């Protein structure tokens, strides 16, 4: 039994247990967490690439925006313990981006402007589970939240949803990204509270 903190009581309304994973609390804000300055890349120089397959692919911003996109509403869960419900996004499904690519790589490493990386199994990018989003809340995605485009993998902790994403490298072996190298979990399932290495 964990020790009781004398005089501590619940002050917030009970969070819906089927929406808020263990150890999380509900927020209405959209906190920003980044390790460095917000990168600014001109859309004229922006590309999204998929590397490591038999035939690497790359899109310019115009080509990327011409791809079929979708709007979605989902909950997000940050490892720093805030969860935000019913966030609305617009973006291109990874199913579209990876369609027709010949590869047998089980792992992927997303890479971003500013040098950020994070690893996600390819299986978690497919099947309507992941997007490269360029819109948030009905408008463009702000730079502090990862714009012009960020990865969105909402069933994993939010650090896996790499801001300022520029591409995905397909890998035969799992490889830790930026925060994973500093002790965060290789997979990051919020429902199993996989915050840190070994959780």
């Amino acid at each position, binding site marked *: 039994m964990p*020790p009781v903190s004398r*005089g*501590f009581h619940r002050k917030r309304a009970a969070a819906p247990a089927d929406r808020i994973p263990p150890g999380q609390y509900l927020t209405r804000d959209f906190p*920003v967490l980044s390790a460095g300055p917000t990168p600014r890349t001109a859309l004229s120089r922006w590309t999204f690439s998929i590397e490591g397959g038999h035939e690497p692919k790359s899109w310019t911003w115009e080509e990327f925006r011409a791809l079929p996109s979708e709007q979605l509403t989902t909950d997000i869960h940050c490892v*720093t*313990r805030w969860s935000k419900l019913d966030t609305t996004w617009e973006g291109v499904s990874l199913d579209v981006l990876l369609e027709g690519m010949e590869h047998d790589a089980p792992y992927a490493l997303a890479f971003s402007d*500013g*040098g950020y990386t994070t690893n996600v199994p390819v299986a978690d990018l497919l099947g309507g589970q992941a997007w490269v989003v360029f819109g948030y809340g009905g408008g463009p995605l702000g730079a502090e939240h990862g714009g012009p485009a960020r990865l969105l993998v909402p069933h994993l902790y939010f650090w896996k949803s790499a801001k300022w994403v520029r591409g995905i490298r397909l890998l035969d072996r799992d490889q*830790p990204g930026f925060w994973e190298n500093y002790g965060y979990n290789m997979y990051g399932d919020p429902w199993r509270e996989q915050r*840190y290495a070994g959780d």
Partner: protein
Amino acid sequence: MAGTAVRGRLSTWQTATVAAVSSETARTRTLRLEVAERAGPGAFQHRAGQHVDVRLTADDGYQAERAYSIASAPGEPLAITVERVDDGEVSSWLTQEARPGDLMEVRGPIGGYFVWESAFGGPLLLAAGGSGIVPLRAMLRERARAGSDVPVRLLYSSRSWADVIYASELDFPAEGVRVIHTLTRSQPPAWTGYARRVDQPMLAEVAWPAASASAGGGGGPLAYVCGPTSFVETVAAGLVALGYPPGRVRTERFGGTG
């Protein structure tokens, strides 16, 4: 974005006893914690700039977890400084209810990028908005503890003088440390310091010139920026505009932690 990678299993929750509490400001308190397993193998050895997860348990079993920056230097008794958030159940308990002898749980230390140790060199530019001073204070204490003579400038933005955390400590900085306050809402009579939110002209006056980057040979000025998002965005973008390589500007932002 290079750094010292530290991987391996993180220790689980450990019971911590409140050893002492002291008020910093009307909304802010420092709590010294004793962690039972701190001395043994796998003990609580942190680096300056890291944070710790805190878990409180009510007598009905309800639990809440938050993360707080560590205020003490490595080797000092573990301390956190907590600012009360208006509807924050954890911060309210820590700043208003907790007293010596009370129990909680801690897990960590967490984070390996927003850290400084004397081997990293400098000169150091520390920029704090409000309670963003906490991990930077740990770095200042680590500088003193390690006997480092790396030059430091600390730019610290507070609403008023009454909101300045660690005021007495910062009044007497160590040799080689310069503290520059800006008070954004109200200033004491005869205040001659900055009295506005951090902006580009202020950064240009206070920050180490980026040019000393190449001249120094040691990578140049290293900046740590911690505070609310708008503060961090302004300072980090401003330093990049002054010529700081983005990889030399490390940031930590305070979100809606309660």
